Structure formats: C-alpha cells, structure tokens
C-alpha cells in the first residue's frame, strides 16, 4: 500500500516534470492513467479511464487568461481511487474534476511567493552568477510542480481511499450517472474553447464544412485535417509563390525578392 502510494505520487510528479522535457503532453490523463493502471495491476481499466478523462479535460488547456483545473493531479488520483475501489470509469469521472479544481486552488495559494524568486534572477544575472538562475528554474519547477504533485497524489491516496469509498457509497446513483452524462457533454465545451481560439466570422463556413464531412460522409478527423490542408494551400495559392508546402512558406518570400 505504501509502495503503491509512493508510485502513484511519482506518476503525479512525472506529469509535472513533463514541463522540463519539452511539454510533451505526458501530463495528460491519456498517458498517466494507464501508468496508474500499471502500478495498481489493472492496465485495461487504466486505459479506459485515461480515454474518458482525456475527453473530459479536452478543454483543460490554458488559453488566454484562463488557467484550467489541474488535470494531472485530478486524473492520477481519480484513476487510482476508481481502480483501488473496484469501480469503473463513472467513479473516476465523478472524482476527477473536483480533485482537479482543489489542486488548482492549492497552486493559487503558493503562487504569490514566486515573483520574489523571479526578480532575484535579475540580480543574479547582473552579478554573473548563472548558477543562481538555474537554481531558481529548478526550484520553481520542482517545488511548485513535481513536489506538490508528489505530495498531493501520495498523501491523498494513502489517506483517502476509505473516505472516497464512503463518499461514493453516500452519493445516490443518479448523481453519479449525472456526472457521467456531464462528462459526455463537457468535451463539447473543450471544443468550444478551441473554437474561440481559431474561429473568426469569415471562417465559420469552414466549421460547418468540417462538420458535414465528418457527419454525413463519416470521414475520420485525420482525413478532415488533410482535406483542410489542401483547402488552405489552394485558397491562398501558397503553391504559386515558388514554395512547395505551407510549412516553408515563411522562408519562401526572400526568394521572390532577390
């Protein structure tokens, strides 16, 4: 039990350490929940929960001023509780969002101490002590990310299993089912948030084009994306400028001028 709790904590810490590895998106439920399943000896449930929670947190990305709930801690703990208690995806879904919100609230308590250390870096730079800047970089990442996730995931898992069992027993079935329904609706909110990022009035027809191709013709998302790339290239005649593909378009215009 203690060993498992430590490993659950380490999975949470790994999720936060992903931000040092190049933001690979390893901190997402689709990656972490199967790992939790591995630790608790139930990979198939881990995979199923990972898929469901990935959808639930689809919109949980920082866009603009919005800081999303902490999907890393939320999904690691929800998945660990659900598997330990022999519950399925529904329980994980019911638990994930409240835990994620609590974890975000804890981060917000820690945040005010960081600006002091960020300003310290300026002093280090002018003194030429690069090691000081490295220390602040590691300090903020480890303390504000990895360590916090480790303690939260390990501590809550050790202390919480029975309490969570009690809560799940106490909540009526229709409420759990309702949370499940909400989890099946919330991905739409995630896509609406992405939509706010990319849709402009003149691009609205392309939303419906993508929708209709997928809806009536049953083309998978990757296929729609490929069709869209051709439309984008063709609409702006990106092939006529002497460059072969969209991705090199940025460098291409020098060649025209000289």
């Amino acid at each position: 039990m203690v060993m498992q709790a430590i490993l659950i904590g380490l999975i949470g810490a790994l999720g936060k350490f992903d931000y040092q590895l190049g933001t690979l998106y390893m901190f997402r439920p689709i990656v972490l929940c199967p790992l939790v399943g591995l630790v608790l000896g139930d990979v198939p449930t881990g995979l199923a929960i990972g898929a469901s929670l990935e959808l639930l947190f689809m919109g949980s990305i920082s866009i603009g001023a919005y800081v999303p709930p902490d999907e890393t801690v939320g999904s690691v703990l929800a998945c660990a509780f659900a598997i330990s208690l022999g519950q399925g995806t529904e329980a994980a879904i019911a638990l994930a969002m409240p835990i994620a919100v609590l974890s975000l609230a804890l981060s917000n308590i820690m945040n005010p101490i960081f600006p002091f250390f960020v300003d310290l870096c300026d002093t280090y730079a002018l003194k030429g002590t690069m090691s000081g800047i490295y220390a602040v970089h590691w300090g903020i990442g480890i303390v504000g990310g990895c360590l916090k996730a480790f303690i939260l995931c390990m501590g809550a898992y050790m202390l919480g299993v029975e309490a969570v069992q009690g809560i799940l027993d106490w909540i009526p079935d229709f409420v759990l089912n309702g949370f499940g329904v909400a989890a099946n609706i919330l991905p739409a909110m995630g896509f609406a948030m992405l939509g706010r990022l990319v849709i402009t009035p003149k691009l609205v027809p392309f939303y419906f084009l993508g929708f209709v191709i997928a809806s009536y013709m049953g083309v998978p998302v990757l296929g729609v994306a490929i069709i869209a790339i051709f439309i984008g290239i063709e609409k702006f005649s990106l092939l006529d400028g002497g460059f072969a593909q969209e991705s090199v378009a940025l460098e291409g215009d020098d060649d025209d001028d000289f």
Partner: protein
Amino acid sequence: MTSDTQITQMRDDGGAIAMAKGAPNEPLISKRDLTKMSLNLGSLGMEFSWTYYKQMNIAFALMVAKLLKKIYPDDEQKYNEAVERHLAFFNITVQFAPFVGGVALSMEERIAKGEIDAGSVNDVKAALMGPLSGIGDSIFLATLRVIAAAVGIALCQAGNAFGPIAFLLIYNIPGFWVRIWGAHKGYELGVGFLEQATKNGLMEKVLTAISIVGVMVVGAMSVSMFWATLPVEIGVGDNMTTLQEILDGIMPGILGLAAFWIYYWLLSKKVSPNWLIIWTMVIGVVGAFFGFLA
C-alpha cells in the same frame, strides 16, 4: 530596414562558404550550436519555471545564455547585461520558442557590433509573441493535439496499450521538428523576416490557412465527441422511437453541433469555463434523475 535585408540576403546567398576564410561577417554561431540550443534545458523547460508574473522569462534566458557567451566572449559586463535583458517577460507556444531565440541571437550579434539599440531585441520578442502564439496554438493545441487525442483515445478504448504512445508520437514529432528548424530559421532570417512577412501579407495568409485547418478539425470533432443521448420515447407500439434516433436520422452529431454553439456563445459572453463545468454537471444530474439524458 535596408540593413536587415542586406544581412538576410548575404546569409541566404552566400551561406557559410562565402563567409568562411576569415571574412569579417563569419557567423559566430554554427548550425550545430543552434540545434543544441533548440534542445537545451531552457528550450525544453519553457513551462517548467512558468509563473503568472513573467511566465517563461527564466527559461528563455537559460535557453540563449550559452550562445550569448559566444557573442560577448570577453566582456563580462555586457554578457551579464544581455542575460538580464533576456529575463524580460516572455510567453509563446513552446514549440516556437527556439525560433524566437534564433531571432534574438541574430539581433544580439548586431547589438554587440553597435548597429542597433539593445532595447530593440525585447521589442521584437514582444512583437513576435502574439502572432506566433496565434499560429502555434492553432497548429499544436487546436489541431495536432486534437488529432493525436482522437487517435490515442480510439486505441485506448479498444484496450490497446499503444494508445498513449501514439498520442505522444503524433503530437511531438512535428513539434520537435519545428523547434530545431525554427532555431535555424530564426537565426538565419533575423528580424527582417517578420517585417517582410507582415508587409507582403504572407503572415496573414499563412495564419488564415492554418486557422482553416484548425476550424475544420474542430467542426469534425463536434460530431463524434458528444456522447450524451436523449432517450426520450416518442410514439407507441411499433412506431415507437426515441428522440435521439430521430435527430440522428436528420443529421448525425446534431447534438454535438448544438452543444458546441451554446458553449461558444456562453464563452463569448465571458462566462467562466469553471461555471460552465459546474452547470453542465447540474444539468447532467437533473437529466439523469428525470431520464431525459443518458
């Protein structure tokens, strides 16, 4: 910006060969240096030391610090000032950070020669953040991540443990290519590129073309990523059907479409996403209780 254009032109036309053999403009920073920079601790750790306050500033300074030493090898004072300069507020789609690093280094070389004012490098960085984050978020968050998740989720639901790996590979392979390519291009093109791309409208065109892909992917995902159903029964006996079946007969995924635009409208009215989550849970519970949602 004639001098920019000249420098860009020289680098483009001449390449390393013309500038080698002790020419005064021999590039201080090699391609290998730039590749290393695009994969160093600062570049990969852009969001590790992220704070609300100055966001990615520490990681950006760490990313360029080693190569700044090459630009100011002997002048401790100027090197320290340059590092401090790059501790200014910074935020971008992480995969584009090395590109901005490349641009910043090409400008630092000219600052070292006294050709341009030291403050201008941060103005240019600030000017790049908006447009590049717009392009970057459209490519990586709205399109690539969604495609990677769609593939990964489908595999996971089938019980295939390759799902998470497929998700990571699809999302990251293009990302790392953009990092390395960006570091080289940013350094090579310098600041002139931005003005040219903006001036001749290329930036706008590319941004719109990329947005079309993002918008169509979001549209396509609206069909399949709404799983709640309306099991309300209509009619009697053999004619009985559910509201869900009727809607699917008219247009598959119509509920996803409706939910998308309701959320879109509420978000545009500045309703907080966290409230929307809470209200959705309330509606889910009420719907499950009365049996009109499942």
